[in-house]
């Protein structure tokens, strides 16, 4: 049998050439994993804050058992009527209208009220902080906040994410967390605008659907990728909302809510901002977020009119114009 002898130098050279070819082919054919592109607003995935925080205020319930009401004697509507009379106008009857149309006294109606009006006003109007006296009628900040809450009660929603849960025919799970995640980052982070949340969503309202609107103005996110599924990331989202307070409160009283969910990266739009454009997700059982999560989010457009209130007169009250 004939043996082929290879010199050690040749063998080393061969191994070197072989290794070089392997390395070369690695550089040629190896595809780098797609990196999330660096964006100017990249940090908005982690925290964001509205430029102007909404103000806290009272939600002015309809129900007779839950004062304070807009229709109370010497309340905001009563003073509005008095001002009209003091200015030589006919009594517009706003207090009677309020008592007729925004009144409740039945069990199960305790949640009816003006939280949508207060939340919209707190986003769209500067906080009234001074008592204004016009024609010897004094409007303190809580009266003015009350009038603004009634005016903005009629505001449409220029943006709306999720759907209202009203019963078994509706989706109990929405708003989807990926939609929630995108709306929060887009409004509060990118635009610096607050956004209103109905916080009474999730399975908690299966037998008792209600609406509780609060303006959200700040968020902080923490991300932890799932070990066995790197396309899925778990999010702990903390949201700061302006809470409803006693009528005479001034400023922003924060209320903190924490939500847990996972979202899945949108592989169809890998360059569009990664998790911001997620197209799938679910509320996590951890932290009870399946039971308690926002039902829908919205942003108001100011009403152009009201059945009885006149915007000109409200502006006069807000500014104290014509005071004596």
């Amino acid at each position, binding site marked *: 049998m004939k043996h082929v002898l290879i010199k050690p130098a040749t063998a080393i050279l061969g191994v070197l050439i072989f290794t070089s070819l392997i390395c070369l082919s690695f550089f040629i054919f190896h595809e780098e994993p797609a990196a999330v592109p660096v964006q100017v607003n990249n940090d908005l995935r982690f925290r964001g804050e509205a430029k102007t925080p909404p103000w806290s205020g009272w939600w002015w319930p309809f129900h007779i058992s839950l004062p304070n009401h807009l229709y109370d004697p010497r309340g905001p509507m009563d003073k509005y009527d008095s001002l009209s009379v003091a200015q030589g106008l006919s009594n517009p009857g706003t207090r009677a209208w309020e008592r007729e149309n925004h009144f409740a006294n039945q069990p199960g109606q305790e*949640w009816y009220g003006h939280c*949508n009006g207060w939340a919209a006003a707190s986003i769209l109007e500067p906080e009234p902080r001074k008592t204004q006296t016009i024609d010897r009628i004094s409007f303190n900040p809580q009266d003015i906040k009350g009038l603004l809450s009634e005016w903005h009660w009629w505001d*449409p*929603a*220029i*943006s*709306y994410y999720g759907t*209202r849960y009203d019963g078994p025919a509706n989706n109990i799970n929405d708003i989807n967390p990926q939609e929630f995640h995108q709306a929060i980052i887009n409004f509060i982070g990118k*635009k610096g605008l607050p956004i209103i949340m*109905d916080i009474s969503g999730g399975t908690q309202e299966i037998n008792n659907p209600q609406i509780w609107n609060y303006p959200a103005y700040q968020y902080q996110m923490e991300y932890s990728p799932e070990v066995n599924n790197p396309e899925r990331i778990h999010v702990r989202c903390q949201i700061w909302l302006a809470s409803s307070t006693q009528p005479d409160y001034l400023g922003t009283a924060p209320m903190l809510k924490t939500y847990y969910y996972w979202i899945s990266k949108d592989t169809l739009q890998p360059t569009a901002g990664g998790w911001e454009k997620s197209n799938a997700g679910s509320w996590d059982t951890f932290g009870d977020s399946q039971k308690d999560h926002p039902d829908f989010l919205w942003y108001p457009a100011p009403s152009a009119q009201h059945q009885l209130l006149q915007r000109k007169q409200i502006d006069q009250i807000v500014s104290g114009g014509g005071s004596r």
Partner: protein
Amino acid sequence: MKVFTPGFRKTWLGAGAGMLALLGGFYLALNYAAHPEPKWQNGESWTVQVEQRADHLMTNDPPWITINNLEMQIIQNSSGPDGTWCVEIHDLDGRDLFPGVQKLQVYYSDDFAIVGGHAVTQNSQTAWEIQEFWDYSLYGRDFFEINPETTKIKRLLSRNPESVILNEEKGRTCTWEKNQSWWTNYQSDNPPLRATLYQDQ
């Protein structure tokens, strides 16, 4: 016993082919006639009133309230990357279409397919490309689509106003009428909207 001779079979085959050709022609003619393709003219305009079921209200019986009165106006471009037609959309009362967005410019090709567009601020600055506006606003792409492919078969069947499903998951439908420049009615469950066309005479 053979019933059909080869010659007889040829005649039948020829007649069958002729019938098929006739049916095909009839199909195309009917398709053309029933297809409610709008006839746009430069400067033409119409109004769409958009109402919203105010589900965000703290009451168990949310009313429908008007959110936008949209004026839509046709501007004819020369053909190019921005399409043949531009529909400019703004609110007659000056309301935003999205916070900070006052106007939309949606571009259409010669056969009315959307080819692009912008969402524009009060200062005529581009706020967003139109796709991003659709991602976030009340008005999705289907609100602006003229000729959804899904409607073609249905349109063959009737000359009456036709209800077209735009998005089953979001409960969106619209109604087209022959020779109208835009749909005459639009309904959406998510978000809860309804809209009506008011065509200028």
